């Protein structure tokens, strides 16, 4: 087990204290450092935007945490077995997926989370861009090394979609829905886009990167004029901003729990949860598969996650890649 950073320990002491007060002596004992060193860490936290008050004879009190994504704040008291074992937060990057893939190529252990405040070339399908302005949203990529066959890896796509819906529910109470394979919708508008990458040999997965973009506090004027699919953010849907930090922590915990279930029980629990979150089953859909347009009724998921569409002629089509929208 890696020893947590002093900052992380201090933040988790605050989160574990019911009345909110942590004495300097307590921190000093916990970290095995001098009172002067404690004071320096508190000063650094204040400089990072933490509002910490010092009340004589009672100790330090954390009044407010800044809504910035920092490894210590994300990891403090995080209830995860694998995800978030290492967290890398970047101010700006090309794409968190690219960064996570580089870590993967360099042999980084699974569970790594790469988060960026903004992306200059966030990835979408077919070379499309994922709009990634600074300070408002979550752009994250998670590195996994499951001992599964490459053939089964695409099933992980459904895992992150379910996790995002659950994190939205726990941080806002809003019921998000999924659209095949892994778009997340709020009131029929896209709120999250997920894109995964895999490095594999014939018979083994080197790594999988789950790329997750969630529109948290993006304002209406920050969306590009021409979007392929109508979009929204949690703040627009909820009417007030949400904490990026709380959302991120909740998301990582949901992914961790689903990933454990996936490793132990296979894709069934994930598929079941996904189907319950999908309200397009039984409805008319149009699927744009590059040059081919498939129209019919969504019949559900095949056992490998393919989209089943029954066309007017009664034929059952299996779709592995395409853009789905309600007809």
């Amino acid at each position: 087990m890696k020893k947590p950073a002093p900052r992380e320990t201090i933040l988790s002491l605050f989160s574990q204290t019911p009345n909110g007060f942590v004495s300097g002596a307590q921190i000093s004992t916990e970290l095995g450092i001098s009172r002067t060193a404690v004071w320096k860490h508190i000063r650094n936290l204040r400089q990072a935007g933490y509002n910490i008050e010092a009340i004589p004879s009672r100790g330090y009190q954390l009044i407010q945490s800044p809504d910035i994504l920092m490894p210590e704040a994300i990891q403090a008291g995080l209830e995860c077995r694998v995800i978030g074992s290492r967290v890398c937060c970047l101010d700006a990057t090309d794409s968190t997926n690219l960064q996570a893939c580089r870590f993967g190529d360099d042999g980084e252990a699974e569970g790594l989370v790469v988060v960026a405040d903004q992306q200059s070339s966030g990835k979408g399908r077919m070379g499309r861009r994922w709009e990634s302005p600074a300070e408002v949203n979550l752009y994250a990529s998670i590195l996994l090394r499951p001992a599964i066959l490459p053939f089964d890896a695409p099933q992980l796509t459904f895992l992150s979609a379910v996790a995002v819906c659950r994190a939205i529910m726990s941080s806002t109470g809003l019921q998000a829905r999924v659209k095949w394979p892994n778009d997340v919708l709020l009131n029929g508008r896209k709120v999250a886009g997920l894109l995964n990458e895999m490095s594999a040999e014939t018979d083994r997965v080197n790594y999988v990167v789950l790329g997750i973009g969630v529109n948290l506090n993006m304002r209406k004027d920050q969306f590009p004029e021409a979007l392929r699919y109508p979009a929204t953010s949690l703040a627009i849907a909820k009417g007030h901003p949400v904490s990026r930090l709380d959302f991120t922590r909740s998301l990582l915990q949901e992914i961790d729990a689903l990933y454990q279930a996936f490793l132990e029980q296979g894709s069934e629990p994930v598929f079941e949860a996904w189907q319950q979150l999908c309200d397009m089953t039984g409805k008319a859909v149009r699927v744009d598969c590059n040059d081919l347009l498939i129209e019919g009724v969504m019949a559900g998921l095949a056992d490998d996650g393919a989209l089943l569409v029954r066309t007017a002629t009664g034929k059952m089509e299996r779709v592995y890649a395409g853009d789905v929208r309600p007809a």
Partner: protein
Amino acid sequence: MEIKDLRTLVKMITDTDITEFEMENAEEKIVIKRGPEKEYVQFAAAAPAAIAAPTAASSAAPSVTVTPAEPAVADDKYETINSPIVGSFYRKPSPEADPFVDIGSVVEVGQAVCLVEAMKMFNEIEAEFKCKIIEILKEDAAPVEFGEPLFKVERL
């Protein structure tokens, strides 16, 4: 037999100490052999079977390749790069970009030759040995099956 069932079967067998397995019925015959030297699955069926180049067998991890009972490619001078997943085959990283490789391209070990997408999981297929691209067997954006050959290549 469906690929899914074959996969389950291979998994079941690789979880045990069984080194040889044979099964035959009216339509098909399945032979699975495991060992440090030869590790392969033979799958003869009425439907066209998937073809794979021999891969380096590792003694630790159970390695599986699918080879036809009657080779469809007569000249064994060439090998193929196959799709490890079911999905859509893309020759380019994005629609506007240049193709990863063309006929005649010489690719190094680990160099990407194409993308296969399944359910928004993008798999960059890399060359497992240095080779020259002889033939591109699939159209851009075409659907591909598990184990289906994507490129005919000459090992260098």
